């Protein structure tokens, strides 16, 4: 946030266009260096692997000179910084190598599985925000009361419970015992080959194609993992909402508004919350990023065919290309959301705009 603080200062000092250009440039530098850092870290991890990538390709029966030749082709004998340069270039074009498991280029696999994770994270964040914000407001408004305590406990548990364990128990309870939700997976086998996804976001596709029975089935599949992620999202969002609302409600303009005779409802929802909305949006964005990251653990439980499951499968097969490719994508999106929310915060912050 330091770079953007100085951007705010630049606004305040009213230095105008050149200051804006300067800070935008510095922001760009931040973006570039952060992504380069990510590439460097994944490159390093890839080189740390004690498996010779050449052997992984030619197999164990190849004689020494064949292995050597493949090493040459892969550029493994080049100095490290040159290898890194090639690596960056490949990453920028989306070439993450080939998956040992599926024999497809990793990028093709990722493009196939990523929408499922995005869909799940979106549903989770929606639930988290739609429930978390009102709960946070409630807790802030009725601070110290039972309601407040309950909301805080819900949040606290959300911070302390292992998500995969809760998911497992939820699956047993809601699927095995109550049979309320559908079988782990994204869609029933019945529909798997008769439903053609267009965007990769099945809920959207089914709705667009007006296949209501498929949509219903998809809903029954996504509701449990989505609610689980929603709970975690809710824990974070409600806590933050509460914090921001308490901050707002202690401001002087609230007292002034009350003195003017505005109703409490208006004050809470149209004034305090609106001001709290700005940091709240960034919180929601960060929660979304967090859910994307958590997919690695939750997708195995629910057999959700997304990027998380892809990474864990590849993991157990020592398919480092796939693991690193997936890591990079999640990392890139995660970083992107973080940076974007920083930008959003400073664009939307009324304090910067009003000057």
């Amino acid at each position, binding site marked *: 946030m330091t770079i953007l603080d100085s951007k705010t200062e630049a606004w305040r000092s009213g230095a105008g266009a050149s200051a804006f250009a300067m800070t935008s440039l510095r922001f760009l530098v931040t973006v570039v260096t952060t992504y380069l850092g990510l590439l460097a870290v994944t490159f390093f991890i890839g080189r740390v692997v004690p498996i010779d990538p050449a052997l992984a390709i030619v*197999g*164990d029966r*190849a*004689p020494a*000179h*064949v292995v050597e030749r493949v090493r040459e082709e892969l550029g493994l004998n080049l100095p490290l910084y040159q290898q890194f340069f090639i690596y960056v270039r490949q990453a920028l074009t989306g070439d993450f190598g080939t998956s*040992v*498991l*599926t*024999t497809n280029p990793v990028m093709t696999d990722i493009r196939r599985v990523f929408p499922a994770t995005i869909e799940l994270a979106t549903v989770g964040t929606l639930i988290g925000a*739609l*429930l978390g914000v*009102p709960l946070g*407001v*409630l807790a802030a*408004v*009725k601070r110290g009361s039972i309601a407040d305590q309950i909301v805080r406990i819900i949040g606290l548990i959300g911070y302390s419970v292992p998500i995969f364990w809760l998911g497992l128990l939820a699956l047993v309870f809601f*699927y*095995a015992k*109550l*049979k*309320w*939700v*559908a*079988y*782990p997976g994204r869609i*029933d*086998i*019945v*529909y798997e*080959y008769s439903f053609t996804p267009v965007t990769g976001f099945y809920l959207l596709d089914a709705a667009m194609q007006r296949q209501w*029975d498929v949509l219903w*089935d998809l*809903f*029954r599949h996504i*509701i449990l993992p989505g609610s689980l992620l929603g709970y975690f999202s809710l824990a974070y969002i409600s806590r933050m909402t509460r914090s921001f609302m308490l901050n707002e409600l202690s401001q002087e303009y609230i007292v002034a508004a009350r003195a003017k005779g505005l*109703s*409490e*409802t208006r004050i*809470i929802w149209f004034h305090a919350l609106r001001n709290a909305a700005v940091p709240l949006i960034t919180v929601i964005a960060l929660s979304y990023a967090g859910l994307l990251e958590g997919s690695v653990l939750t997708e195995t439980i629910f*057999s959700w*065919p997304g990027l998380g499951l892809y990474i864990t*499968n590849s993991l*157990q*097969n*020592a398919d480092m290309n796939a693991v690193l490719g997936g890591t990079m994508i999640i990392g890139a999106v995660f970083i992107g959301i973080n940076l974007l929310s920083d930008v959003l915060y400073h664009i939307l912050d009324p304090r910067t705009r009003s000057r």
Partner: protein
Amino acid sequence: MMNLLNKHMRLMTTSAAMALLLAAAPQAFAATPADTLVEGWAIDDIITLDPGEAFEISTAEVTANTYSKLVNLDMNDTSKVVGELADSWTISDDGMTYTFKLKPGLKFASGNPITAEDVAFSFERAVKLDKSPAFLLTQFGLTGDNVTEKAKAADETTFVLTVDKAYAPSFVLNVLTSTVASVLDKKVVMENAKAVTPSDDYKYDTDFGNEFLKTGYAGSGPYKTREWRANEVVVLERNDNYFGEKPALARVIYRHMKESAGQRLALENGDIDVARNLEPGDIDAVSKKDGMAITSAPKGTLYYFSLNQKNEKLAKPEVIEAFKYLVDYDAIGETLLKGIGTIHQTFLPAGQLGALDDKPYKLDVAKAKELLAKAGLADGFTVTMDVRNTQPVTGIAENVQQTLAQAGIKLEIIPGDGKQTLTKYRARQHDIYIGQWGSDYFDPNSNAETFTYNPDNSDEGKTKTLAWRNAWDVPELTKKTQGALLEKDSAARAAIYEDLQKQVLTTGPFVVIFQQIENAGYSNKLKGYKLGPSFDTNFVYTVSKD
């Protein structure tokens, strides 16, 4: 204000409750489609669908239902073979030339006619590609240089195979029922073959469609492969050009599911028709439930763990023996293996010619400690075991870890998925490997060979039997096994195998633990669902649904 907030809360809780209630509405769509067989099975061992390269158990079943061979096991008497693509065959007087006459007018799924040329091509590519299963054919003296001569098409419907010794005919024919002898559509394969620059290691300028067939199909079986996504699913579709009785079901889907509990739930809910990896507790539960049943068949598959003789500690004969006394066979048999296996300690599975049922070993920590002390390892040592992430292998490994610890041997379990651990094993880079061995064909030579035949123990050795993988150098046993192959008298042949089993029991670096009983839980909607004696006789094309 309070009221409004409460109202909001109430609205939210009501809608949440409604959502759950709606989700609880009776599932009208869980049932599998009437024209599709859905099996839940752990298929993560599949690395390719090319019959000339595949050597894995799951693939054996897939290719059995999608490709045809010259001959197949007679399902009524598995010690005999019947012709599938071959109408009849004759063997020359010197026992070295087999002439097969193909049934006329048969077609591949592509519509191309099945000719002897295709058969010869299938043999040629298997030998030239020289992948893991190639030894099944090269053991008959076929090499990359002579295969086009020794396995050739005399005319459009006559295929002639010349072997290098007068083997027992039953042996040769049994081998021809294995996956590597599947007949491929030469035209389709070569259309999709890739050009390759010849090198010292691989002398040919084409890959014979190896890359295409990794996920592609060029066969003539009752089903054709529509799709394979690694660790996810295999989809088979009815082959409308099949020359035999077409299967009743249009599609067969093998869904990758590793967990017994998950499979059981899915079976109960009707999400799958067959569950293939049920564990003892779930087998019990399914057998008691209405609407489903269990079918089982003993398989010629043995579970064992092997000690890499390249590890000098594991090469000591006392250590080998000690390991055999450090497995709690009884406890494992009663619990981890209940219903899915029987304790078995010799290398020939029950039911094959010459199989012995000796079980001389029991858990005996004291004796093991004595043996270790004799080997100078009284303080124990550390060793690793590569364990595939499936049950019951993991459970057995964890239990063996405990019993070994009682004698001072510290076992580090290295977990891995099928491909990873198999690759390491085939490269001889393990300490101990635990896994299964399924006979390649229903003849004692298959197991005898893999456990006792190691003609070239060097790292470049071409014959990758288990004996080789564990660097067990046994020239005398190798000779004996070779001799048994040529023994025409069954009783004498059986005696040789019995002797071999006894030797492996005492000195072999193999601790055989049990023989598999394969179970499948299936829905009563299925008719004609059966498991065969081997994975490449688990036919699904005879199954229909109510």
